[in-house]
């Protein structure tokens, strides 16, 4: 028994690079050999899905991209899933960006979903209004008058020449807002300055770390559900029945979490042995 304990103790003081290696493999291997764990939607994700389902046909939906490449793995699967859902249900999508690099993300998502998968026509089914600097001032500006802020869209077309922009003058003209947010400016600003004052319902998808900040608003009903990080995206993909990057990442995510938990348990076993031994002597 003592020998076993010695072995465990020795393993417990292992160089942290071994931990790095194991975590790396725990993430990498499931990407090559998927397990196909079942995905079950949480209440918050279900709320987002229900909110989108509740929209009447041909609704006008504002989707705002507030994330960049460094948080792309968490948020991008959500926006792709949401766009698929919106286009399947035949809604019109208006895209804005509060982050400069959000525009690149929006271009990518729209090309993938609207152009390649759904073959929709720009200006009639979807429009990319693009990035404007000014953080929450942009949100406030859109609430009072979109046309003052956006005279042209991201591709340089005059907004007046875009068919689907007819009758769209301010945020209140939309039926739904979705904010895909990785920080400031993001969901909080949309809720404070756009959704709360105008009463247009809003849903959100955020990075895991931000969920803590937004959750009180979901509980109070200011926000219709929340997609929390990559697992949130995977749950949404499962709800709309179109598995994507989120779903394929979930096996890696589950395994990595399991490995970390095992590390913690193992660390505590060595700690336990150490304490017992120090008591003996």
């Amino acid at each position, binding site marked *: 028994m003592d020998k076993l304990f010695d072995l465990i103790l020795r393993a417990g003081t292992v160089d942290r*690079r071994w931990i790095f290696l194991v975590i790396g493999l725990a*993430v990498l291997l499931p990407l090559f050999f998927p397990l196909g764990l079942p995905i079950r939607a949480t209440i918050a994700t279900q709320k987002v899905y229900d909110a989108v389902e509740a929209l009447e046909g041909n609704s006008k939906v504002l989707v705002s991209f507030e994330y960049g490449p460094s948080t792309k*793995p*968490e948020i991008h699967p959500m926006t792709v899933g949401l766009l698929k859902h919106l286009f399947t249900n035949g809604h019109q999508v208006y895209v804005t960006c509060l982050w400069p690099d959000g525009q690149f993300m929006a271009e990518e998502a729209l090309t993938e979903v609207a152009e390649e998968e759904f073959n929709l026509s720009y200006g009639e089914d979807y429009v990319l209004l693009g990035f404007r600097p000014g953080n929450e001032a942009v949100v406030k500006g859109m609430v009072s008058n979109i046309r003052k802020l956006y005279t042209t869209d991201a591709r340089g077309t005059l907004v007046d020449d875009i068919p689907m922009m007819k009758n769209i003058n301010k945020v209140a003209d939309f039926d739904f807002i979705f904010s895909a947010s990785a920080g400031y400016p993001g969901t909080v600003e949309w809720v404070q300055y756009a959704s709360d004052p105008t009463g247009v319902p809003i849903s959100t998808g955020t990075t895991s770390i931000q969920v*803590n900040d937004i959750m009180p608003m979901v*509980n109070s009903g200011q926000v219709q559900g929340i997609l929390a990080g*990559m697992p949130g995206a995977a749950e949404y993909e499962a709800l709309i029945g179109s598995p994507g990057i989120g779903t394929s990442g979930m096996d*890696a995510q589950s395994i*990595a979490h399991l490995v970390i938990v095992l590390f913690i348990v193992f660390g505590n076993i060595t700690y336990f042995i150490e304490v017992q031994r120090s008591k003996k002597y």
Partner: protein
Amino acid sequence: MIGPWIAAFLTLAILSYLYKDNPFYKVAEHLFVGISTGYWTSMFFWTQIQPNLFGRLWPATEYNSDLLWYKFYNLLGIFSSVFPDGGINKGHHMELLYLLPFALGIMMLLSVSSKLSWMARWGIAYTVGMAAGLRAYGFLNSNVLGQIRGSAFQIFNSDLPFFALVGESTFNNFIILIGTITGLMYFYFSREHTGTFGRLSKLGIYFLMISFGASFGFAVMGRISLLIGRFVDLITYSGSAYNHATLWLLLAMILLLGYSAFADKNNASKDEPTIEK
């Protein structure tokens, strides 16, 4: 075509830090510091100074080449990319009040000379004063008043069950109330944490710890997702469309790092006297 190779190299170079501090990481780190400084300098200039400052001082909407003010502007026109002909069209009106931040900005730049370094103080004082005024109100409103309102729940609400794991319940509301008040007690500075007060503040710490644990759990989730994203990119770059960039670079780096580790070992055995224990 060279882009993905560079991207794959930089990704691997940063990851190599996990093994140890090495020349690849040092190159990537220094490059990153340099590029990002240049990136943000350009970004700030083109999204703040040019549109929001110059765009307000010389807006295209009020352009009039007879005015002395715009004559001066035309002189600046040698930098045509920053000061295009006919004023700057960024949707602003002329607001000469913006000469004030302009002046503070110039003073900030002048403070580079050590004799004039006091000039930066004005800008600093402005920044601190503004932050203090805005944040004092904002935080008092959302962090204090907003949270007090959140805690004043309805005890006599017949719609709520007494106990429920999912959703709101009276029991849950009490948990939140007790946690909030005892948690606040932990932050008392002018009282020794002993006796009943100490026990309550201890209970408060327990709530804080649960909260920290929950945040930590969420953070683990987010960070792992990001790593998945990085690996997916690397796998993309290892495809034949990119000439298997990832694989080649990985191989080259492992060889070089392995060689340097080997060389280090030999050096170490030569230089250092052996110590027996």
